[in-house]
């Protein structure tokens, strides 16, 4: 049924690369122009498909980095053994075309409809990408939902969107922990997100918060478990795991 448009079906579309900007040494944000983009919700993804000349193709899913209504953008971390990310981060230039489909996903999404529930966002490495969309969406809505973002990165130069997060707006508290290296004068947290840091940073369960946890699988499991131990009902902890580095 190739080429048949069926309502609700996902179709591959050609996106034109607008700009590629560096976030860190290994992370790029890529803006994409798609003629028939349906619009997306904060936290959704899109799939990218690269096809080699011999017909071999590889697909990967990337979180959308821009807020609903903003020009479409993804943020991609280069994985040295990756099939897709080295091309996206090293080779792609403005004007190039890639195949994408989306938006995809409905679970790891924040719509902003609920204007009171405090949000806890916990990011490991490039797991911060969907949170940029959520924070921008909150800002664009003029929402006053209180947000705490706990962001685990290898080192300060590995922090993605650092400038932007410093100006995330009133009602957004950002806490970093650096797991591998930290500046000599660093007064913030170091080491992985453990029970003590989680307990100190997370909203008390009695506030009825909604938690989103995104990062590599080995990061997400203990954080999600830790939140449940703090009294968060499991269904109030939404998780999203991705593969690749254990870079957090």
């Amino acid at each position: 049924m190739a080429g048949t448009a069926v309502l609700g079906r996902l179709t591959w579309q050609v996106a034109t690369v607008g700009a590629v900007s560096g976030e860190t040494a290994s992370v790029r944000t890529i803006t994409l122009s798609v003629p028939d983009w349906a619009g997306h919700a904060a936290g959704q993804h899109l799939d990218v498909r690269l096809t080699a000349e011999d017909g071999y193709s590889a697909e990967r899913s990337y979180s959308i980095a821009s807020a609903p209504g903003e020009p479409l953008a993804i943020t991609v971390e280069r994985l040295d053994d990756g099939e897709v990310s080295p091309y996206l981060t090293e080779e792609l230039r403005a004007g190039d075309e890639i195949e994408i489909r989306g938006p995809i996903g409905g679970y790891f999404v924040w719509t902003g409809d609920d204007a009171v529930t405090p949000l806890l966002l916990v990011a490991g490495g490039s797991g911060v990408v969907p949170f940029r969309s959520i924070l921008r969406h909150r800002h664009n809505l003029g929402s006053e939902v209180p947000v705490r973002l706990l962001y685990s990165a290898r080192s300060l130069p590995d922090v993605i969107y650092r400038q932007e997060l410093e100006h995330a707006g009133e009602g957004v508290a950002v806490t970093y922990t650096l797991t591998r290296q930290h500046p000599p004068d660093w007064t913030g947290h170091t080491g992985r997100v453990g029970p003590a840091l989680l307990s100190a940073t997370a909203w008390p369960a009695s506030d009825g918060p909604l938690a989103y946890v995104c990062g590599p699988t080995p990061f997400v499991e203990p954080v999600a478990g830790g939140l449940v131990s703090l009294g968060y009902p499991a269904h109030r902890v939404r998780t999203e795991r991705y593969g690749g580095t254990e870079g957090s």
Partner: protein
Amino acid sequence: MRHAAPDGSALDGNAIAGLLREVFGTEMTQAVARCATCGAAGPMAETVVYGRAPGTVVRCRSCSAVLMVVVRHRQQNCVDLLGLAALEP
């Protein structure tokens, strides 16, 4: 083979949102999947997903039984749902 816990290469159902929509024609990460082996139920997004097997293997987060296997062959998806007792969009 059963896995006691998801290893580092495991993803979750969010990662196959596109594939699920391709197979079912609608958003499925919020659909509630009930395991035919242990009876645990939860959103498809929270299942354990291995994408590097020959095909995509979806396992139960509670008992790690196989819920679903999708293998693509000649641009067709072959879908095995025998591990699911129910799937409610």
